[in-house]
């Protein structure tokens, strides 16, 4: 190395340029993602907000609702839901690594800067969420330890995304393998599902923890740089050779020629299934497989101290939390949520387009429910065998079967309605989503809390229960208005109205036979049943708004 003054100046210039490039990359990360970060953190509070809103409807009012919400949030599994949700929010800012391939910057710089920004973003987001939850609900979440863990996890996700940007199949495999490895690692610390308090989850960050986090971060950086560099220079892993290998060896000439579609609606339904409808069943299969692997590999003593079904229940809760994202994905037509030229120019009415989406979503839900149920039964059996747990079924009587079937029917209809409604909102585009989110957050979460914090003289003379029932009635009016508007604008037809009526009757009957007879105190359940067909009107209206701007 030269020690001449010219050499020092060159080094200074080089380091100055590196600093400028790093600053520009960091700016790009934050400029692209700051809205998502803010909206995402606001959206995170819909989970506790939902719990709080549901509890508000019960006797006990705000103090009880706060206590119940706080108790649920103290559970460790809720932490993993938060991490998943926050991680998903950072993902868009890590997209499109190809845009960086031709930048005049080294691969380590390109990877390290964005990874560092992502880790900081994740830590800060988690810390803010934890502090707010601790202040509102007295959840006593520890901040530093879980925050650092979340930051390392996002670094790993980024490394995986950067290394697999050319192959969706490889990416899914890598994500799944990472989830399995993570659970196996965490299981060494203690029971994965045992309802530990968050105050006991990584309470202290000592030397050993910092070393572990540091080594893990270095591994993420190394993998990210290696994967990014290989893809940048066109030598990344490519799985297309598998398809080529198979097609060379298997003769498909005997396969019958695909018949023409019977109608335009059949063709559109096929497109929806092929494009998005298959995602949830495939995800259910993949995560079900991962759950089976975990059930086989996780030390028996670390699975759960409770019933073997706890593992299956926890995994199912995680899947439910993903249904919101799935519903959103099913409804989004493009990254900007708008109808692009191909979808928008289909010679189908708005109602027909919406029906194809809802049918595909329904089929996806049914298939994935069957797949997931099968896997969870298998998981519960494996765990029971490993823990030598006997599950006495006892005498099964007709009442139990009826209760179970009716409860399952009602639950399935409610899940379908919720997911399809989210799909409808996404079909409506950004404006509809923004308005709906604002209304929901305002009505269900902020208003009751805000009214309680007003000076006594200004507090509205409305009990929490009355407020909850009032919101229900408002939703019922909106639902009816949606059907009226859909009918007047020729977006829904007589068969759709008949289907809506059938759904209501089925739900009411299921509620009745599941133990909610026709009594005055159960009228909110009847209203809930009447809200179930809402997506049948909301989806065509959303398509109409978005497609013809």
């Amino acid at each position, binding site marked *: 190395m030269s020690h001449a003054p010219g050499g020092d100046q060159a080094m200074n210039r080089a380091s100055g340029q590196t600093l400028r490039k790093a600053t520009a990359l960091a700016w790009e990360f934050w400029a692209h993602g700051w809205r998502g970060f803010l909206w995402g953190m606001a959206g995170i509070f819909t989970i506790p907000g939902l719990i709080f809103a549901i509890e508000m409807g019960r006797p006990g009012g705000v103090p009880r609702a706060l206590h119940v919400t706080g108790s649920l949030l103290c559970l460790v599994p809720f932490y993993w839901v938060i991490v998943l949700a926050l991680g998903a929010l950072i993902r868009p800012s890590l997209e499109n690594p190809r845009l960086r391939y031709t930048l005049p910057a080294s691969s380590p710089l390109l990877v390290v800067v964005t990874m560092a920004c992502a880790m900081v973003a994740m830590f800060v987001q988690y810390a803010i969420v934890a502090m707010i939850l601790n202040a509102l609900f007295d959840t006593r979440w520890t901040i530093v330890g879980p925050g650092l863990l979340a930051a390392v996890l996002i670094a790993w996700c980024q490394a995986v995304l950067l290394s697999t940007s050319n192959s969706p199949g490889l990416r899914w495999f890598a994500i799944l393998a990472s989830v399995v490895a993570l659970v196996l690692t965490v299981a060494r610390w203690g029971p994965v599902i045992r309802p530990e308090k968050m105050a006991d989850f990584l309470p202290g960050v000592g030397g050993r923890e910092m070393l572990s986090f540091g080594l893990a971060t270095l591994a993420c950086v190394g993998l990210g740089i290696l994967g990014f560099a290989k893809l940048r220079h066109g030598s990344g892993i490519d799985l297309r050779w598998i398809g080529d290998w198979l097609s060379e060896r298997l003769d498909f000439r005997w396969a019958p020629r695909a018949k*023409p579609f019977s109608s*335009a609606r059949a063709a559109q339904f096929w497109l929806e299934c092929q494009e998005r409808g298959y995602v949830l069943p495939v995800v259910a299969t993949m995560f079900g497989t991962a759950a089976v692997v975990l059930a086989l590999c996780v030390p028996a003593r670390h699975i759960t101290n409770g019933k073997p079904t706890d593992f299956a229940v926890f995994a199912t809760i995680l899947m439910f939390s993903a249904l919101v994202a799935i519903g959103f994905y099913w409804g989004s037509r493009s990254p900007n949520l708008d*109808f692009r030229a191909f979808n928008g120019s*289909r010679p189908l009415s708005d109602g027909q387009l919406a029906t194809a989406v809802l049918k595909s979503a329904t089929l996806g839900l049914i298939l994935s429910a069957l797949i997931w149920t099968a896997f969870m039964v298998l998981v519960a059996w494996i765990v029971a065998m490993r823990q030598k747990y006997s599950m006495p079924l006892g005498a099964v009587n007709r009442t139990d079967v009826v209760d179970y079937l009716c409860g399952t029917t009602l639950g399935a209809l409610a899940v379908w309605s919720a997911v399809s409604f989210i799909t409808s909102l996404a079909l409506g585009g950004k404006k509809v989503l923004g308005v709906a989110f604002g209304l929901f957050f305002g009505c269900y979460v902020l208003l009751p809390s805000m009214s309680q914090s007003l000076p006594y003289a200004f507090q509205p003379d409305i009990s929490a229960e009355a407020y909850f029932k009032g919101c229900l009635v408002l939703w019922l009016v909106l639902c009816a208005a949606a059907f009226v508007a859909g009918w007047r604008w020729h977006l829904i037809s007589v068969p759709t109205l008949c289907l809506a009526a059938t759904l209501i009757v089925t739900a009411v009957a299921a509620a009745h036979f599941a133990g909610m007879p026709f009594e005055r105190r159960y009228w909110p359940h009847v209203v809930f049943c009447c809200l179930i067909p809402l997506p049948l009107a909301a989806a065509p209206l959303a398509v109409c708004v978005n497609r*013809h701007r």
Partner: protein
Amino acid sequence: MSQTARPENAMSNTATSNTATSNTVQSNAIVEIDHLSRSFGSKKALDDVTHSIEPGLVFGLVGENGAGKTTLIKHILGMLKATHGSVRVFGLDPVRDPVGVLGRIGYLSEDRDLPDWMTVAQLMRYNQAFYPGWDERFADQLRDQFELDPQQQIKRLSRGQRARAGLLIALAHRPDLLILDEPSSGLDPVVRNDILSAIIRSVADEGRTVVFSSHLLDEVERVADHVMLLHKGRVALSAPLHEILSGHRRLVLRFEAPQSARPELPGVLSYQGEGREWTVLCNGGLEELRVAAAHAGAQVVEEETPTLDEIFLARARAPRSA
């Protein structure tokens, strides 16, 4: 593939049948646009556009970036709702009756929006279901002509192949109205020629209507019957192509004395030159211009018909003419 000349009989037929002006709305028109305006925030994308498109025409829509061409096309397709004014296609509202309108339209979008995951064969089979007039033999013929592998996925096609695939599904059902948004954008001359050949054939053979927007004015000049120039959302010029070409002249003027500044002459849209020799492009009023030039001490040494490109540039830069 050799270039094919625009059939003269088709041009003369469309010239005589093209009586639509920018200020009247015809009842037998395929597309009727009446006082259409559209703003996006503070930006006015379309400003009081009125026009009708007759059947059997090749209608060229030209303008600079952001002039409003794609916005106008989206209104015709119903992807934008007319908030001021109205749009009717085949006598129907494209927003209220998307099936009736879109079922008779073949559309190639500017960004070649096609499902990436489909193969060419799947794309054809899928689109066949939407159009009762889908001609399977014609579709297979187009696919062979465009040299598209039916088992190739759309995402693996090159840009030119993707454009051909989009054109295939737009043409295969023999639409009454073919809408092409920047069909030649980013394509090599071979593919561009294929597209032009497809346009000419479809118009000449079956009398269909074509609306296409383009920046490549030499292509517009080769195939269009009627040209509309949009400038900042307004109709700057709309007339049959032969009228536009014959109504503009490029003159070379030689002055007795060098001119230190641009000579101000009536009816001139653009000036080029310095000193004694100036090239001007004017719109009509030739005699008046000759007289004015003579008074200014200039002599017309050359007179030619300008290209559409030159007329477009002059119009786009000149103040809006009445």
